[in-house]
């Protein structure tokens, strides 16, 4: 009995696992058989500039989310204020809004200021990815024992000093994890960028362009480069997460 049960569950459970795993492995494998097109892609100036563009905008998004997300996360963790659960709801909202709708909303709000420029890319990325930094910062600050902050104050630190010498260093690990997630989510965004800033070209949009204009095989090398970058970031993320555990 014991074994049939486990086998049956393993059988059902492996479906989604393989469903995620096989396309990734297959895509990378196909590319390994065709290294030529990969090196060609890496020589394509449009590919390179779009990659740099993606990485730069994702990084800018991450930095903005850190700068504004840490104070918001701190307040959500440490303060009790009227409407706090409403604020938390707003922070969690972007994950359920269709990406194309995000683009429409941002254009309606900022119109030409973000149309087809770097600000547009970053604004789209920020909307869909800031929640990760905010929520991780919040969890990090929740994890800081209140007593430590009390003790620091009796030792002569005012609230700002306590924040910078005790709370922030102790929450840093969680904040970094969240910031990496924000970076990765920014890098993965397509739908809203397509609407707000088709240009300057980002790598994730270029994949789509090449696919539409030249077909699957032309899109593949850029896709693989992006997969490898994301796998690398994902690997770092799990390393960071493990250090703490």
């Amino acid at each position, binding site marked *: 009995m014991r074994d049939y049960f486990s086998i049956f569950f393993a059988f059902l459970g492996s479906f989604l696992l393989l469903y995620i795993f096989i396309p990734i492995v297959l895509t990378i494998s196909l590319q390994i058989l065709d290294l030529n097109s990969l090196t060609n892609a890496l020589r394509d100036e449009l590919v390179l500039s779009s990659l740099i563009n993606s990485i730069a905008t994702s990084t800018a998004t991450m930095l903005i989310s850190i700068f504004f997300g840490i104070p918001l996360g701190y307040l959500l963790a440490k303060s009790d204020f009227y409407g706090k659960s409403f604020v938390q709801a707003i922070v969690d909202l972007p994950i359920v809004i269709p990406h194309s709708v995000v683009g429409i909303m941002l254009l309606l709000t900022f119109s030409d200021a973000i149309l087809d420029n770097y600000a547009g890319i970053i604004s789209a990325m920020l909307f869909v990815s800031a929640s990760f930094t905010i929520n991780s910062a919040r969890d990090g600050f929740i994890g800081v*024992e209140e*007593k*430590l902050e*009390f*003790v*620091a*104050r*009796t*030792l*002569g*630190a*005012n609230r700002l*000093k306590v924040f910078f*010498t*005790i709370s922030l*260093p*102790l929450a840093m690990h969680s904040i970094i994890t969240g910031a990496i997630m924000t970076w990765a989510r920014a890098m993965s965004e397509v739908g809203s960028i397509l609407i707000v800033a088709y240009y300057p070209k980002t790598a994730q949009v270029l994949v789509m362009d090449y696919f539409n204009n030249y077909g699957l095989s032309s899109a593949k090398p850029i896709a693989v480069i992006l997969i490898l970058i994301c796998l690398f970031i994902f690997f770092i993320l799990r390393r960071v997460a493990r250090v703490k555990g």
Partner: protein
Amino acid sequence: MLRVENLFKKWRDFRLESLSFEVEKGEHFMILGPSGSGKTLLLETIAGIHKPESGRILLEGKDITSLPPEKREIAYIPQNYGLFPHLNAFENIIYGLKLRKIPKEEIRRRVDQIAEILEIEHILSRNVKNLSGGEQQRIAIARALVLKPKLILLDEPFSNIDANLKGKLMKEMKKWRKEIRFTAIHVTHSFEEALYLGDRVGIMIGGRIEQTGKISDVFSRPKNDLVAKFLGHENILEGEANGNILEVEGLRIEIPKSAKGRIRVVIPPESILISKEKIVSSARNNFKASVQSFEDLGAIVKLKLSLGGINLSAYLTRASFLDMRLSEGEEVYLSFKTTSVHVFE
């Protein structure tokens, strides 16, 4: 030195109610009370972490009730010592000195001095997470003492210490306290700590300081039955006295001094003799009772006895308990000397 006047404060499940007491300079003042009596809340209010709803706190005559904690010069050492886990032992100790921008050599000098007395020189570079409870305690105390605070608040400093080590560490605390004279308020629920380390004690029950005084005084002369009960005095009876006889629920108890009207007495459980046969002795108080329940204290068994309307506790060694083959509902005889009855004032 520190004077707390009529403090009121509610916080979560705890409260302070019209709480007043005073601590003298250089004193190790114990606050002894059961858990849930608000001892930690009191310390944190003195430290300035909570603002009282009413009442005043005076330190060396100055009203500090509304000062923020960082301006009070009062050090607070919480129950788990509150060491900063991202700093090593040395960095923990100098945390407050660095904030005050004390020059490096002066910092080094002060740390060396304290470290020698507390015998922590060899662990200064260690990660605080790997220190034992006793080592953590010393680092926390050093971190407080280097700032030369006017007052140190210790919250259950021995609660994270292994029972076997506790005696040794209390001994050492007593030793270095003699070298570094400081004023301390030390919160605990342990009679041993109070007796061993305290100069004076305040008994805290239900958010109030019920009695303060020298420890042996408070222990032998509890002011009221709340304090008496907390201190483990059992068998507190209330009845109508008439001369040398106290009548409690129909029971006539001989008492050592003449009294009149409603009074309270204590019959120490260890003064009660138990036997299965009727006792023939000089003791004037002899009664029949039935065993209600028993509790094992480790080689000593505590019996709860019922005599008509009243209940009394009595101690017995486990050996005689087993010998007598006592069990619930059993009838026994009990006796106690008149002189062992303590009449409340």
